[in-house]
């Protein structure tokens, strides 16, 4: 008797999963989306999401008009970070440009600049930066100071013969960037986009699917059959778990082929992280679906949740810079974990041992969400 029961169990799940796959692939829209979305997202979004400073529009007010001031300007013109597109004598005009979004930085070289430098006194310049976007403003300032520092060095070495030689203590600083020598932003963002991808598939597509059955009413028919709670749940989650992993693989492939992203660590580790993450997300999707009567409601709640998790996860900004309460929140934020895991494995080659704490926590979250979902999901009223 027991063996027949066991048989029913496994076969039931098998039949249910098969039905799910048939339905998914028969739905022309979804079946296309599953492959189109990763491809489009990767190709379109990855090159775009960058903080790399390029072509910052710079307006120059040169009231000095000396070789020194012109030297500084040409140094800026030669820099790949800035594009000197305006030159004026009037502060008002320059401010106007700033208001009108025609430039982002104004460099004001007052008269007397060259004279001061010639006399051994420091020359002052004033940079005005449109700081609405605080992070690009800071980065622009960092690069601007860098160019000015370089120019500073140029002046010193030029005049090394004319000024008295006093041994000036100098600390020579060299700096290097590891794992991403050229500070290629794509390397940073691609793992992030991958996470968005996998989350979207798990939370949005899968959950919508679950709610649709509820909304249409087919769930009632399943309820009267011997199908047990966990059969139904496994059958709902399994296909999207698989699809999520396939999309992860697809995303990685595109990353490699289109952008030549390095992959320092082990692919298996990546997939391990991804698998556990998907379980967490699918459990969450199921949980949310128990609160939603319609697809629209579900979409909203799920989207809301996804946005919050994503913003807090450190995808665009470093999670460590967040206040303590935010970092505490991230303890239950599965996206934060996958973000870390992906970046560490892909770029630094971190091993399972290195990320073990993240993996354990993710597994705990996955168990938690799924248990919550299963207990809320009732077959009998």
């Amino acid at each position, binding site marked *: 008797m027991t063996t*027949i029961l066991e*048989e*029913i169990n496994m*076969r*039931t799940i*098998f*039949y*249910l999963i*098969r*039905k799910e796959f*048939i*339905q998914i692939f*028969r*739905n022309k829209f979804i079946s296309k989306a599953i492959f189109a979305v990763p491809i489009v997202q990767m190709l379109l979004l990855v090159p775009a999401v960058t903080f790399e400073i390029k072509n910052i529009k710079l307006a120059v007010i040169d009231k000095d008009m000396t070789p020194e001031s012109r030297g500084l300007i040409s140094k800026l013109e030669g820099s790949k970070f800035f594009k000197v597109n305006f030159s004026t004598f009037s502060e008002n005009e320059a401010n106007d440009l700033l208001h009108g979004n025609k430039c982002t930085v104004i460099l004001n070289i007052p008269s007397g600049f060259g004279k001061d430098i010639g006399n051994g006194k420091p020359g002052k310049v004033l940079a005005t930066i449109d700081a609405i976007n605080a992070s690009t403003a800071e980065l622009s300032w960092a690069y601007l100071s860098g160019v000015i520092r370089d120019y500073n060095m140029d002046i010193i070495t030029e005049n090394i013969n004319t000024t008295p030689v006093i041994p000036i203590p100098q600390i020579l600083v060299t700096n290097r960037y590891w794992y991403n020598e050229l500070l290629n932003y794509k390397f940073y963002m691609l793992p992030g986009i991958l996470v968005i991808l996998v989350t979207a598939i798990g939370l949005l597509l899968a959950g919508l699917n679950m709610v649709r059955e509820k909304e*249409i*009413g*087919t769930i*009632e*028919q399943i*309820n*009267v*059959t*011997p*199908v*047990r709670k966990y059969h139904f749940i496994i059958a709902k989650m399994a296909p999207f778990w698989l699809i999520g992993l396939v999309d992860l693989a697809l995303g990685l492939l595109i990353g490699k082929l289109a952008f030549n992203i390095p992959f320092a660590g082990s692919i298996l580790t990546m997939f391990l992280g991804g698998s556990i993450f998907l379980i967490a997300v699918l459990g969450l999707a199921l949980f949310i679906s128990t609160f939603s009567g319609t697809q629209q409601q579900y979409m909203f709640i799920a989207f809301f949740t996804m946005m919050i998790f994503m913003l807090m996860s450190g995808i665009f900004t470093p999670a460590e810079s967040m206040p303590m309460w935010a970092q505490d929140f991230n303890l239950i934020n599965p996206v934060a974990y996958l973000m870390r895991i992906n970046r560490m494995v892909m770029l630094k080659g971190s091993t399972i041992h290195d990320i073990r704490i993240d993996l354990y926590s993710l597994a705990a979250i996955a168990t938690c969400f799924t248990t919550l979902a299963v207990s809320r999901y009732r077959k*009998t*009223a």
Partner: protein
Amino acid sequence: MDNTVISVHNLVKKFGSFVANDNLSFEVFKGEIFGFLGANGAGKTTAIRILSGLSKPTSGEVNVAGFDTYSQTEQIKRNIGYMCQKFSLYEDLTVKENIMLYGGIYGMKKTLIKERIHELLEKLHFEEYENRLISDLPLGLRQKLAFSVAILHEPKIVFLDEPTGGVDPITRRQFWEMIYETATRGITVFVTTHYMDEAEYCDRISIMSDGKIVALDTPDNLKKQYNAATVEEVFIKIARPNPATPQSRLGGTNTQHHSKLIPPKREQGGQNRDR
């Protein structure tokens, strides 16, 4: 008793303070075609949901197919079939895929399922629809198919919730022929309907009103008892809803506009069968 497949004693179902099922007691016997009638809001759907294991009673004893509804719901489910009007089959699956799914869910072996598919398609004369999506089928065919799927696994009882709604008279007749044939095989048919003429062809019917059963007998006996020519008259006489309920229409008002169902052929049988 060996012949009883459903036994209900003092079933009460409350939703808050509203009593949907008020002390129901009745029995259904094996191989019967049992008609379950009542106005909208009388408590029929609630009762069926309890009998099919979808919900639990507030109090009372309910036994279906020999299993207790409180503690053996899963066994009940394995031994019953269910077909509701709203939905039965997955629209985006083909005929064959639906049958395979339900067969598998009820634990039938693959070879057995395949056999049954052939039998079924032959009997219903739609072999060519085997690989058609349900959404492509006309309503009548869908309902017949849904019924066949509901009894695919040879359950002891099949529950039919308004199975012939919206279907043309010829198809209705064919449907009832299927019901008869099923009953002959020993499967009990528990059917609710608004079509009073269909009620005539049940072995016994019960009429619910305001949560209580107000009549339970064979159609003939009821007609004699209430001095009525048709079951419809009986219904109108006793199923008058409480003026307090929002219902002002009786179920089955439309029957006046429907052409009478031509009595379907019925083979030897009825509640006189001995098994």
